[in-house]
């Protein structure tokens, strides 16, 4: 549409090359995943000139929400059957995650005011798998008292433990009740309240959202804070601590991309980077795409845009996207639920997550439910790892399985001016990913992100 503008010329352009977009930028961002879009949004708000590219014709990279066409194309599954419904009614997340209502991602959305582009809905139910049964994670003290998860005396101990956690404030020694959580391990803390291992398991996995049991032997503080986030989030919106953006998680990167765009950022989808260009000190100075080239002071991107030697593999995650024509059985007929299967319940080290969302959240056509089962791979047979999760789903109409290798950068990026994000983690929420994002921001800018000031001070408010 916008007709070819007059191309500028630059003295640094090699013979035969054309400038890519405006040619010169402060930052080039590769990939439109959530982390990349948040970084480009924050940088452009600070006045940097940003060019963001993506090899796909959609926003979101690994964490996109795809319509049927793109989903079937991604999995080489032919054409989607018409019985599923209209293409556009589907926004299928490639990485299933839910947002803690009072977690760090929410803070980031508020800080940047990207909230104004998005609407959210609560996830109705949060469940945990115990001894072959799906049980509701109690949302209120009354539910806790009725819950078959614990015996009567255990319930009282559970209550006093939660009261302790609720009032605990690491800056106020009078709330410590003589416990030093920087030294005491999580296991010791549970034991100091007389809680039995079964209860440790359900609190740690279904409420603190720990992925395995490593935290039990570590100082309790971090885990206690996670429990606080869970409890505050739960008290905020309803029956589960999770919220979810209508039309899928893909709205998150899109929202941040809009923040970047209104501050002058340039976007090019459907445009791959063929080569990163370095100066003789090994610092990245730009990118090449076809016969076009752009320069920048540094580049940022997800691991898939960088040469192998700049990243290392950290593990593998299997994710199964399933279409159902019914809600997940045994969850009170709720449309939107999360079920956590603590690893030890099914002889695994790592938990399995099951999450189901449907048309009420605008991710599928009416009557179709999208359930995603995911876990960290422990062996090398993806299909076997997810069996306990799939077994909870009842009849599955269609299943897409993918195994993703996760990567992290080998260096902080200051030497080669290549700032690389880590792949999304195996957890069912964004807390760890926001930590990676904050670290990336600090590496790029040299500053900590102060989430107390508003990055966006434009007058275009409601």
């Amino acid at each position: 549409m916008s007709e070819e503008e007059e191309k500028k010329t630059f003295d640094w352009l090699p013979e035969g090359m054309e400038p890519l977009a405006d040619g010169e930028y402060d930052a080039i961002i590769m990939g439109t995943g959530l982390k990349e879009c948040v970084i480009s949004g924050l940088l452009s708000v600070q006045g940097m000139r940003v060019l963001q590219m993506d090899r796909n014709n959609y926003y979101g990279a690994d964490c996109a929400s795809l319509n049927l066409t793109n989903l079937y194309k991604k999995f080489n599954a032919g054409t989607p059957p018409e019985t599923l419904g209209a293409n556009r009614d589907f926004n299928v997340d490639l990485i299933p995650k839910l947002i803690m209502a009072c977690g760090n991602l929410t803070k980031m959305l508020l800080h940047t005011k990207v909230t104004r582009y998005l609407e959210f809905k609560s996830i109705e139910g949060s469940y945990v798998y115990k001894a072959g049964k799906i049980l509701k994670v109690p949302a209120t003290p009354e539910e806790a008292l009725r819950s078959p998860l614990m015996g009567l005396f255990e319930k009282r101990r559970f209550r006093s433990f939660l009261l302790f956690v609720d009032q605990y404030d690491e800056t106020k020694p009078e709330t410590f009740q003589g416990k030093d959580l920087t030294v005491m391990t999580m296991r010791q803390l549970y034991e100091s309240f007389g809680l039995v291992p079964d209860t440790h398991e359900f609190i740690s996995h279904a409420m603190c959202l720990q992925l395995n049991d490593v935290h039990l032997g570590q100082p309790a503080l971090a885990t206690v804070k996670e429990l606080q986030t869970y409890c505050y989030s739960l008290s905020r919106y309803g029956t589960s601590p999770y919220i979810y953006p209508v039309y899928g998680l893909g709205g998150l990167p899109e929202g941040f991309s809009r923040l970047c765009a209104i501050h002058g950022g340039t976007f090019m989808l459907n445009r791959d980077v063929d080569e990163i260009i370095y100066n003789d000190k090994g610092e990245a100075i730009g990118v090449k795409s076809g016969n076009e080239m752009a320069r920048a002071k540094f580049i940022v991107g997800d691991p898939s845009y960088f040469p192998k030697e700049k990243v290392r593999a950290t593990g593998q995650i299997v994710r199964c996207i399933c279409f159902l024509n019914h809600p997940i059985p045994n969850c009170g007929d709720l449309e939107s639920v999360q079920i956590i299967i603590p690893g030890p319940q099914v002889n695994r080290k790592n938990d399995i997550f099951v999450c189901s969302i449907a048309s009420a959240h605008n991710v599928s056509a009416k009557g179709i439910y999208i359930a995603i089962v995911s876990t960290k791979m422990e062996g090398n047979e993806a299909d076997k790892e997810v069996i306990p999760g799939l077994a909870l789903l009842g009849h599955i109409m269609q299943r897409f399985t993918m195994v993703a290798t996760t990567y992290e950068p080998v260096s902080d990026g200051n030497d080669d001016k290549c700032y690389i994000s880590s792949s999304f983690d195996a957890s069912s929420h964004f807390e760890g990913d926001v930590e990676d994002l904050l670290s990336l921001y600090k590496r790029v800018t040299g500053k900590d992100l102060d989430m107390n000031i508003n990055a966006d001070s434009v007058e275009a408010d409601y």
Partner: protein
Amino acid sequence: MSSRVCHFKLVLLGDTAVGKSCLVVRFVRDEFFEFQEPTIGAAFLTQTVALDDATVKFEIWDTAGQERYRSLAPMYYRGAAAAIIVYDITNPDSFAGAKSWVKELQRRGDTNVVIALVGAIAGNKADLESRRKVDFEEANAYAEENGILHMETSAKNSNNVRALFVEIAKSLPKALQQPEREAFPIVMQKQETRNCC
């Protein structure tokens, strides 16, 4: 007269520099800047139009340049009830651009959207009569063929700008306005409201 307020999302489309931002700024703030920066900052404005039977509140989404390389985020048109496609009467390429935006909308929208979608094309910079390159009648005929509203506007002298929005407001099916949704925006939280079990 009813005090019913209907909310509608309205998106602006069109080639760069045709005057999209100027149109919005004229409509919302009644201002005009000769040297309007390419959309920076304000890409989300609201303005109301009072009709006899209802008040229409427009949430106006300006493109913010993502259209330059055809990289508009789907969230931009999602839920939009109306689109204004702007061209510049002194620039025939921008009229060709407007036509391809109309095609894009027709391709993307399904019947539901099309019924609810009010397309308008606005030939902007109508104050520059002496440099006109797009014939009014030709544009009008094209709009009629496609069942869309057409007006020539000037953000500079404010001619027809308000009228354009009023026409759109009138033709929006009020009954079909976006249903009350249970979805909510997230708002700043107060730490005191914590009450754990």
